[in-house]
């Protein structure tokens, strides 16, 4: 904005609102448009190169070895036996350096290291390196390892002791306001129920993969990572080398959904092996190892308490979550994150705690917090609506807060009720069976459900460099990533709109830590953070162009590669000499504290439940979302489709099971961990409500990548209740949980 330094490096800290965005006055006409992905032709023709696909000379193949016990200690590894096998080069381990768990996203330290001690089944203890993948796999599978078994805790029990006082994870572990117990006693109608959600796996289609190659004391890692800047720091810390000695390249990433936020065990194993062998090493996790040894979304047990007056006014909300993690890790699933601000009510308790288990690390998976927290909250609200005999949408209207109900601040923007009302009309909400279990079509029971969507908005410190070349073309570079979210495309749109340059004249260089640092992709902050950084760099370049053309910046129009002003029109390449460039950096600021920032929406689902078998099919689903400016309607819609489908999986099928005797994952492949297939997903409808959020960032957009999952599963669960009059409080709602209560055949 005016008054900021127009030098080569522009930084904006979001301490104040940013009421005017140049994207609204751009005339290139690409921002927001449903443009096809710029990287699309490469992706559909197999030309996009993912981490494991770099053909390096002298590459050796590494296959990881996971511990075959759930708790204890490695006594010895018989490397000689493996090395005697044809093609095997070496068995590499380093009991001190290998990382025991993946790191959480955005951390700059190494994760917990040391793999002599086994804390969970499948912990990566060694890497077998061979001339071929086939030889490495065979030797890894047969590697003799001697263990000393310890006593682990392998079953989640609410009877187990908990920490009681955990460090903040996005939200504080516990906040309290008023007296929820008293509110429950005072309530005319109340709900006090416990919902449980299982462990889940992100199950990105690309398994975690790293190719490590050293040049002297410098490491280059081709890795499938969402946040290369901090991942490189984690990797350097793990290896005990300087951060500037690590370069991560991640041009294409085959999905992440949180599982690739921080470095995973294959990265350090590949790096250590490559160093020791003096040649590049590729380590790709087996799908079973992705399940065993990366990261899971924690299971949760959520006690929901809602206290209401007879007219539906909430006087108390309690959301007490117990999740699980390893004893060394403090990440807790922040399930109460949106309970803080979604509904009014004076007496509030939102708390989180952990049961300590010898299960795989728990961490962030798509919408950590809301994705499972809204299953509890939005189903409980549905239960309250039934108890009050008030329409669930009307109940939400009654409890719509004017300001943040816990902090003395306004919402930056909030379109929950418009989303619910728009959706209700479009979905035909008035046609739903008001009495549950009353609509039948042949063997199928039909029901409709609704749930609110909310996702806290985040901005992360991120930079981008933008260069205009003498031929008028533009290069944007940053250590940002595109994990399928559309970054290549939407960021090109931002630059094109800001500089008035056709899309095909812009080269978007992402996924390389040699470029300026970025927060990467996660927490739905990617588009807003990187988009804002590019905005700032382009704004600086606009100033330079204006000066070069000798017109006032406000009088400058940029379109189709030309600068227009003062009745003159010049190709921008002619204004840049040998080329100009600028770096933009966005930083979060006081606006985060001064306003509660979130994106909102509403989910509607119609399900059919087979009255004989209990099988549930989602027939229709509608999501209405308001997330600030939509940068590309097509890719944003796809993000929402993906989130809604994660909601289908969470509601109906996904359930990561640990054997409570050994801690071993039972269903550790894609045949038995059931992510939705095409036939599980009907044609989903997505509607965006127009919105701008001037408190969020200069581009007025908010995160969209996770909003689609938030509440989606709850709408399905509520629809199942509406169809069957059966309230299942343990997710996923598989048929076995329904048939006992279904009518006799």
């Amino acid at each position: 904005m005016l008054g900021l330094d127009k030098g080569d490096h522009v930084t904006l800290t979001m301490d104040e609102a940013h009421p005017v965005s140049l994207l609204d006055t751009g005339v290139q006409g690409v921002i927001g448009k449903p443009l096809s992905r710029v990287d699309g032709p490469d992706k559909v023709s197999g030309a996009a190169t993912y981490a494991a696909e770099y053909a390096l000379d002298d590459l050796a193949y590494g296959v990881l070895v996971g511990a075959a016990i759930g708790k204890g200690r490695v006594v010895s590894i018989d490397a000689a036996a493996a090395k005697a096998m044809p093609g095997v080069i070496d068995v590499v381990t380093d009991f001190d350096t290998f990382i025991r768990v993946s790191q959480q996203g955005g951390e700059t330290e190494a994760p917990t290291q040391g793999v002599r001690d086994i804390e969970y089944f499948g912990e990566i203890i060694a890497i077998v390196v061979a001339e071929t993948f086939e030889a490495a796999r065979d030797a890894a599978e047969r590697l003799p390892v001697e263990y000393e078994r310890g006593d682990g805790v392998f079953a989640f029990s609410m009877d187990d002791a908990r920490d009681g006082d955990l460090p903040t994870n996005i939200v504080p572990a516990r906040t309290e306001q008023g007296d929820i117990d008293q509110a429950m006693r005072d309530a005319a109608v109340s709900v006090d129920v416990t919902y449980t959600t299982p462990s889940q796996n992100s199950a990105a289609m690309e398994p975690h993969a790293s190719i490590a190659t050293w040049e002297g004391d410098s490491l280059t890692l081709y890795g499938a990572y969402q946040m290369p800047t901090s991942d490189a720091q984690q990797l350097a810390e793990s290896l005990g080398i300087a951060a500037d000695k690590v370069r991560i390249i991640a041009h294409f990433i085959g999905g992440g959904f949180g599982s690739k936020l921080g470095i995973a065990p294959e990265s350090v194993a590949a790096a250590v092996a490559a160093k020791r062998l003096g040649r590049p090493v590729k380590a790709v996790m087996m799908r079973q190892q992705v399940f065993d040894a990366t990261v899971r979304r924690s299971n949760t047990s959520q006690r929901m308490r809602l206290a209401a007056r007879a007219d539906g006014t909430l006087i108390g909300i309690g959301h007490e979550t117990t999740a699980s993690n390893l004893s060394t890790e403090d990440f807790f699933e922040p399930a109460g994150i949106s309970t803080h601000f979604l509904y009014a009510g004076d007496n509030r308790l939102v708390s989180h705690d952990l049961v300590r288990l010898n299960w795989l690390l728990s961490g962030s998976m798509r919408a950590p917090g809301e994705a499972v927290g809204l299953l509890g909250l939005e189903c409980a609200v549905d239960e309250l609506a039934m108890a009050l005999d008030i329409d669930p949408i009307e109940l939400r209207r009654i409890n719509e807060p004017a300001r943040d109900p816990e902090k003395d601040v306004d919402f930056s923007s909030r379109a929950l009720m418009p989303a619910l009302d728009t959706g209700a009309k479009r979905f035909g909400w008035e046609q739903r069976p008001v009495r549950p279990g009353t609509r039948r079509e042949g063997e199928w029971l039909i029901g409709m459900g609704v749930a609110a969507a909310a996702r806290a908005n985040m901005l992360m410190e991120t930079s981008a460099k933008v260069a205009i070349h003498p031929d008028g073309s533009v290069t944007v570079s940053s250590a940002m990533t595109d994990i399928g979210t559309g970054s290549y495309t939407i960021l090109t749109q931002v630059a094109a709109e800001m500089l008035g340059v056709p899309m095909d004249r812009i080269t978007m260089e992402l996924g390389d830590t040699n470029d300026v640092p970025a927060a990467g992709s996660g927490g739905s902050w990617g588009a807003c953070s990187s988009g804002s950084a590019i905005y700032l760099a382009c704004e600086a370049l606009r100033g330079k162009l204006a000066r070069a053309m000798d017109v006032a910046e406000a009088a400058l129009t940029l379109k189709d590669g030309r600068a227009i002003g003062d009745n003159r029109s010049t190709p921008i390449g002619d204004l840049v000499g040998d080329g100009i460039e600028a770096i933009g950096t966005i930083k979060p600021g006081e606006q985060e504290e001064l306003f509660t920032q979130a994106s909102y929406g509403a989910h509607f689902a119609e399900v059919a439940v087979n009255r004989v078998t209990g099988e549930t099919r989602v027939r229709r689903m509608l999501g209405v979302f308001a997330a600030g400016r939509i940068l590309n309607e097509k890719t944003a819609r796809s993000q929402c489709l993906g989130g809604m489908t994660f909601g289908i999986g969470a509601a109906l099928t996904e359930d990561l099971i640990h054997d409570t005797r050994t801690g071993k994952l039972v269903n550790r492949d894609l045949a038995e961990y059931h992510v939705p297939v095409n036939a599980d997903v009907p044609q989903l409808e997505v509607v965006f409500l127009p919105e701008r959020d001037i408190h969020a960032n200069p581009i007025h957009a908010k995160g969209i990548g996770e909003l689609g999952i938030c509440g989606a599963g709850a709408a399905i669960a509520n629809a199942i209740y509406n169809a069957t009059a059966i309230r299942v409080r343990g997710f996923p709602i598989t048929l076995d949980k329904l048939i006992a209560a279904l009518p006799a055949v």
Partner: protein
Amino acid sequence: MKFTINGRSYEAEADIRTSVLDLLREHVGLTGSKKGCDHGQCGACTVLINGRRVNSCLTLAVMHQDDEITTIEGLGTPDDLHPLQAAFVAHDGYQCGYCTPGQICSAVGMLDEAKKGWPSHVSADLEHSDLSDAEISERMSGNICRCAAYPNIVDAIREVAGRAPAGRDVAGADA
């Protein structure tokens, strides 16, 4: 071992245990076919062998030396896309792109199966099934997309199926 891939001849010195998928990715340099699970549980590795869609991870290279293997690279290039590839771009039938080559190869094979009149699990009449959305979804259910572009994938395939009779043979007859 000798192979015919996308109409070209290749020779590779490979371990007897090498799958067609690993042959493509590690020996021939055709990395368009993806490894998502290596156990036939995701479909990312789908290629066409003699025109039929199969999971290339679950078959040995040594068994396919006399066959015609067609991969995503053989269907089209970024500058000259196959109609299904173009439709996937137009309809955003992907996000991260990792399952996409498998989806497209699968769709090519699937449309050929449909043209031959093969029924599916959701066909009410096994002798006459038209390619409804439900049919496309069922027939494409061997290709998992965790980004969940399923509705867009169905849109893309429906569009190509609709114009197939008049346009280019999408069944991959050259496969």
